[in-house]
């Protein structure tokens, strides 16, 4: 699609394109699982965190692999993942490395693979694969080698990672040859790093247990050169405790990838280089494709532009019309359309070279909740592109944090982008109790609205009226008490809920792919009504009473359902209605065609008693009563 296609449908596509381009290339990941005997010990993790209490470490590792596959199907299905055991009794892998068993080759995830992983049971594993009788440093070395070969078959441009699951803090052992083994393993690890493979280690130890990382730290950082500063921007990390599945997937699900680079240009010439990262990337359902119903192959979709006057297929359309035909017709000649060239259109829109241009600084409090219109982008210095950028960035970052100010800039992403205003907000690094980084240090680039984007429905009398009641101090106090009770607390975090639309979509697809019946999916995205009632019931009650008075609540959807017309009234109400009906001879009046003498209220009583719809004009109401009586007779 050309870049400045302004058709309505194309505008959307354009927008989509903007999102899509942030999606970087793919990930290739090898799960390397140490299967010495001790892996079958119970892990003792809590089921509240996504694991079952009876799970062994073996189960835990496989479950992580499974969830990992699922997650990648949803978020980026062209990623490739392999699952490999090391330290097995049976050897089975493409290169015949001893004591290595490739459970699943490096490939895109599929429903069958997820199901296969689910089916792996301990007994089955012991029979079919088994653990090597004795542990040996060779196992890890071969495992790393096998992982490298697997990754080599993958796409050359992918980000490559090996995730090692082990409960062995010191694979070289303590024998006399330990140093020798350490050297050998390190050599393999170094080769991996040279092939641009990242190694991460997930120690399989109980939460309270310690795990010396001395050996593994060397493996993870093998081949790193302190001088070049590679580790600086990569931020390699060593330890992640397997305590919560969602936490783990969040932390280890994706490798970090840049979404673009830019120069940050200050007035009067100073520049530094930054890289952009999409840390928030809306995951969407896959769009449907069309298959050949018989061959089951994807169809090719071709689109062509056809000149309606001559029937010719156009190779290019150099002219545009504004407003487009449909709109121009609505104007009925009041304003004649303008025909302009695509080049002119481009010149209207493309007014500045790509870059991030500093305009000035403002207090951070100037940013209001309605000032952004899309997800943010993370900005980090790019030392490699322009050495010296990091120092300048850190100084600016620090100065902005100290004064609590944000930078406002013009951002032009590419040569075909129109400029937008952005705000850069400095963020401090945050770590959890284990020293694990939970939010990175850098700046968040927030995409700002223009006045043309912002609307003011809250001050439109047509929407809100003109009379705005103000709560009293007592009422506010009641609300404060309620808020206190309904606090989600420290454990709540952004991104704590799974997207039920995606989960449902993919769970059902998984079932269909395996020819199974679609499952019932439990909906976790619902307020915790029970919990709210237990903890805050009294406070909610008190708040409601303070603003609505006793025993009143505003009606919800239940009371407004369109079925209201057919609803039978409550028993006591019905009795009162029947009584009222007895006073009027509807049948008699109807026979005389004299229902019209009754008041609408009286007519409606009849409808209500019979459970009929009560709306409409008097004529319609009478019509409805007559019809009902006729029906009753037949």
């Amino acid at each position, binding site marked *: 699609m050309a870049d400045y296609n302004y058709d309505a449908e194309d505008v959307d596509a354009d927008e989509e394109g903007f999102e899509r*381009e942030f999606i970087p290339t793919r990930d290739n990941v090898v799960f390397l699982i140490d299967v010495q005997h001790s892996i079958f010990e119970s892990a003792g993790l809590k089921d509240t965190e996504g694991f079952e209490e009876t799970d062994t470490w073996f189960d835990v590792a496989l479950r992580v692999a499974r969830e990992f596959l699922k997650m990648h199907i949803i978020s980026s299905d062209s990623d490739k993942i392999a699952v490999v055991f090391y330290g097995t009794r049976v050897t089975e892998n493409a290169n015949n490395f001893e004591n290595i068993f490739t459970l699943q080759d490096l490939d895109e995830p599929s429903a069958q693979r997820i199901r296969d992983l689910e089916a792996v049971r301990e007994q089955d594993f012991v029979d079919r694969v088994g653990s090597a009788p004795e542990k040996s440093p060779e196992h890890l070395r071969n495992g790393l080698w096998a992982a490298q070969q697997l990754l080599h078959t993958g796409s050359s441009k992918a980000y490559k990672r090996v995730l090692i699951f082990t409960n062995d803090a010191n694979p070289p052992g303590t024998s006399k040859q330990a140093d020798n083994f350490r050297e050998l393993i390190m050599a393999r690890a170094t080769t991996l790093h040279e092939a641009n493979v990242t190694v991460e280690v997930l120690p399989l130890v109980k939460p309270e247990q310690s795990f010396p990382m001395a050996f593994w730290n060397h493996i993870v950082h093998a081949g790193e050169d302190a001088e070049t500063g590679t580790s600086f921007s990569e931020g390699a990390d060593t330890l992640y405790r397997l305590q919560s599945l969602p936490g783990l997937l969040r932390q280890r699900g994706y490798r970090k990838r840049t979404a673009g*680079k830019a120069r940050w240009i200050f007035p009067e010439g100073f520049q530094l280089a930054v890289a952009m990262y999409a840390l928030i990337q809306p995951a969407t359902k896959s769009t449907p494709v069309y298959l050949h119903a018989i061959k089951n192959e994807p169809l090719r979709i071709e689109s062509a532009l056809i000149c309606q006057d001559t029937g010719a297929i156009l190779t290019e359309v150099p002219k545009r019309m504004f407003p487009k035909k449909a709109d121009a017709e609505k104007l009925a000649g009041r304003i004649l359309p303008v025909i302009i060239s695509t080049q002119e259109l481009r010149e209207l829109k493309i007014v500045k070279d790509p870059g991030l241009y500093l305009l000035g600084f403002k207090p951070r409090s100037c940013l209001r909740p309605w000032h952004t219109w899309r997800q943010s982008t993370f900005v980090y210095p790019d030392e490699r592109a322009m050495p010296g950028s990091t120092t300048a960035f850190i100084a600016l970052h620090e100065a902005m944090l100290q004064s609590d100010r944000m930078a406002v800039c013009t951002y032009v992403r590419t040569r075909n982008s129109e400029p937008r205003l952005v705000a850069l907000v400095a963020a401090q690094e945050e770590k959890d109790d284990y020293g694990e980084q939970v939010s990175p240090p850098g700046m968040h680039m927030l995409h700002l609205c223009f006045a043309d984007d912002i609307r003011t429905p809250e001050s439109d009398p047509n929407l809100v009226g003109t009379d705005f009641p103000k709560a009293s101090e007592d009422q506010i106090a009641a609300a404060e008490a309620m808020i206190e009770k309904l606090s989600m607390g420290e454990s709540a975090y952004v991104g704590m809920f799974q997207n039920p639309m995606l989960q449902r979509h993919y769970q059902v697809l998984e079932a269909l792919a395996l020819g199974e019946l679609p499952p019932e999916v439990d909906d976790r995205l619902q307020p915790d009504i029970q919990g709210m009632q237990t903890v805050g019931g009294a406070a909610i009650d008190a708040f409601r009473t303070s603003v609505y008075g006793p025993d009143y609540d505003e009606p919800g959807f239940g009371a407004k359902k369109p079925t209201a017309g057919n609803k039978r009234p409550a028993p006591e109400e019905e009795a009162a209605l029947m009584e009222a009906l007895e006073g009027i001879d509807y049948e008699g009046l109807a026979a005389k065609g004299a229902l019209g003498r009754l008041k609408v209220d009286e007519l409606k009583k009849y409808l209500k008693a019979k459970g009929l719809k009560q709306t409409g004009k008097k004529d319609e109401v009478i019509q409805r009563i007559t019809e009902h009586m006729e029906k009753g007779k037949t």
Partner: protein
Amino acid sequence: MAKSLAVFAIDVGTHMHAYGDLVAETLRTLFLSKALNKPRDECCILYYGTTGTKNAVHDEMAAQGDPGEYLHITVQQPLQPPNASFLMLNMPKGGGNSDFVDAVTVAADSINRALQARPELEKANVGKEIVLLSNFHAKVREDGIDEFVESLVESLQSKAVSLHVISLDNAASGRQEEKEVNTTMLSKLLKEVKHKQTHVQTPAELLGLFKCKEYSNTAYYAGPFTIGNMMTMRVKIAKKAKKETLPATGLYSEKSRAADASHDVLREREYKDASDPDAMVPPEERAKAYKYGKQYVPVQPEDEAYLAYRPDRGISLMGFLDAESIPQHYHMKDPWVMVPEKGNERSGLAMSALVHAMARKEQVAVILFVPRVSETGGANAATCVGYPLLGSGQQPDCLVLNHLPFAEDMRVAKFASLDEKPDLMPSTSQLDQMRSLVETMDLFADTREALLPDLTANPVIHRFYSYMASQAADKDYPLPAPHEDVLINETFEPRPAVISKAANVLHKLPEHLHVEKKELVLDGAQLKEEAKPVEETAFSLEGAAASSVETVGTSDPVGDFEVLLKEGNPDVAFSSLPPAVFTLVDNSLGERNYDKAVRAVVAMRTAAEELDRGQTFNTFLGELASKYEHDRQHRNFWQFIIRERVMLVGNPEEAESFFKQHSGAKEEEAVAPMEVNEDEEDEFAGMD
């Protein structure tokens, strides 16, 4: 029936001449937008301070023997839907003397006349507005004015006419005395009349005065907001902001010269069998499917409903959090507001109490928002953060909502601590430089907040409307260069007032912080976009289906490449050839595929030279060099390239030095051939 009536009373007296061009541009943008987006709105242009006189009130009084009243007021365009004659390119430079009270009187009169002629316009839902634009330098006459204003107020009130006063305030212009008198009079007039007052200080503010498209505020959701299962508030939710895109243009074909040519272009879509390019597939042979990992899962229409998530519609509270625990960079989309139901005293009170309590306790609400549930498409559910927004006389206490990311949307990544490398830490003096920069480059340099989003117009969209309006009025009107565009300069360029305060620091920065300047290397996505040509190509291939014609494949890369070029798809050709080459080489058993790959590289170079895409090719060649020159397995491929003397396109000297630099091969240990992965795919597939 008209949706709204607006009379634009524009001061064109001598003291306004300097503003003429800007005012004209603002108005023609507005009138074009009105015609397009609110075609039933009616407008009237009234100039005051004109040399001549042309208005009905004057005529009437003259007929009654009093020709000295309401002079120098000209009704340029009577009340009607804006048409081409509204898109005037020049404002008259008036030489007459008139004041705003008379102008408003004539404006009100033209509304009254319309109401008399068409009584249906009296309805309350037809907006009636007088827009008064002036710098208020023409002193209002003072004798008998009070009674006059009183009766004017009465007339405006009785017809529910509101006033929008746009005051051009330029403190340096002098005439403060006149202005003060006028302001006093104006406030008397406004006291009893529904009004809005805008103070404009810069040309950009004047140009961005009117939004490029007005929206009526409709509720996207109206219904209960539930707290637990114990309490309900009736609320409405409406969009608070939405990115405004450039208006749509249509394709226009010039193929036919016939007088009655429609010039229409139709976009036709055909579904074809991937293995048989000529076979069209009729709808009944098409099966809908979704991708699940590497599989395509056909979904029957009856199964489609299972895929959808269908919770109950509604909006409910999930809990409260400390405001600081949800920084704004977590916002996913455009914001909404949640307001209490109109006229519902109880819900208004409840919302007011909640909003005040949240503000005092610095809390935000986490809210589950399911505005719509359809039978087939399922729900659109979101978790939102709700911020308290305290009301005023004009607006109720309400919540501002924005979408929070779901777990699937988060890509947690780690970055090194900024203090990790001591040698990269800034010194105290470097830090001081940045501190003073942050302090001096202050966007409050003009005492008012610059670039406040709520008041900053989008220069590109205004440029678009303004140019189109000019074109509609005069086909020869030139496209202004970006650097001459006032809105672009004032919005996207640093402001002189801001820079001048910080000039000292800015000049010293390079001395204190040494950043090595290098050519910016754009990454894949950016490069690809750059390579896009200006023209729209005829046959664009869409969809996920893979085929030999859609991209350059590995079986016949040169052939595919040439076909794509012939079909006018050079960007696809150029972007998909490199991955095919990488695939060929990476999967080559020994040197088996090298010849084919080299031929593809040569073909691309030839085409690059012809089509002026040297940069794309050079980047590719550089990538090949860095990937294969020292690659243990495939370094021989690079030798093939060198043997063919495949050079950079462009500067021969550069090409020669690149060649020399990369042609010296080093001997390294031979490595056994690897397994071949047949499933290797197009590297860029995921990016299209």
